[in-house]
């Protein structure tokens, strides 16, 4: 979904960096602020969270704080539904070149979906 939404908006991102926590350069606006906030929300350092929240409020505004909090809440919970039921990935076109590139970046080339 990130790849598709970035493709649609013409922005760029570094998937390896995103997975490793080394964000690097992305073309997505306020990406560093959002990632810092998301990591702080699911972490246990309250002072870090205060700084991240204040920075998000400063650069993106109060509505963005609500929706960033909501997005973190959504994905911090839905990942558990996926991981703890053993559902497989949805059917995707493995012959699509962009999918093949994604599998290589994720290091899951050759793994079965189920």
């Amino acid at each position, binding site marked *: *979904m*990130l790849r*598709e*939404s*970035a493709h*649609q*908006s013409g*922005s760029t*991102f570094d*998937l390896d960096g*995103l*997975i*490793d*926590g080394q964000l690097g350069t*992305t073309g*997505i*606006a*306020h*990406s560093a602020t*959002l990632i810092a906030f*998301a*990591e702080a*929300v*699911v972490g246990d350092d*309250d002072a870090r*969270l*205060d700084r991240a*929240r204040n920075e998000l*409020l400063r650069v*993106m*505004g109060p*509505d*963005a*704080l*609500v*929706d*960033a*909090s*909501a*997005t*973190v*809440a*959504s*994905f*911090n*919970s*839905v*990942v*558990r*539904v*996926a*991981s*703890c*039921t*053993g*559902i*497989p*990935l*949805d059917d995707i076109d493995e012959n699509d070149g962009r999918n093949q590139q994604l599998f290589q970046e994720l290091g*899951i080339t050759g793994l079965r979906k189920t």
Partner: protein
Amino acid sequence: MATGEMHRTPIREDVTDAEARAWGWIRRSGTWLTARQKVAVAAEVRQAQACALCAERKAALSPYTVAGAHGAASDLPAVMVEVAHRIATDSGRVTRAWYESVLEQGMLEGEYVEILGLVATTIALDTFSRGYGRPLAALPEAQPGQPSRYRPAGAKHQLAWVPTLEPGDLTPDDPDIYAGYHPPYNIQKALSLVPEAMQAFFDLDETFYLQEQEILDFAHEYRALTHDQMELIAARLSALNRCYY
């Protein structure tokens, strides 16, 4: 502004409404769990953050090498505490063998799925509060009532470790859990063994994130964040939680 302080940033009304519905579901008698057990599961989600066994397991190379007893907040059976704590603190390393082991300890498949829905819903509610910067909500009082013990007749072992219900296997007795999904993704089928849990969780989840028809509508933005900003957060959260999906 410090964590726990209230501030004046308004919250979308659909969010506050969805939060109220989610707490209402938690406090009502469920499909397999009593209302008291459901509220106790929510309490265990919070307790897990301070559980020494959970911390030790999370730090271990494999959580399955660390034995012990959880520091529980309730009188739930030990296997229910184990499920609630493990999903709350280390979901990325849950395995099918662990799932089968909790069934061998006497847990019913429906109980497992309902607890998973409760843990995920409680985490969503609490994560939003923490991000927004307000205290966690007080746990609700359990309402009287008895579990329905309803199991969809068409639910089968077919897609996942847990039984799931395909759209074509819905019967007139089942709630129309896939209305609006054309077709549903696997993630939406994951909790379908317990339709109430599936509906309660995704009611909140889609209010926090995006409604089904909005997810792929890249021509419009529905939030104060763009699609790619939201998916950036999603991807980072998936990596932090070691989620493959």
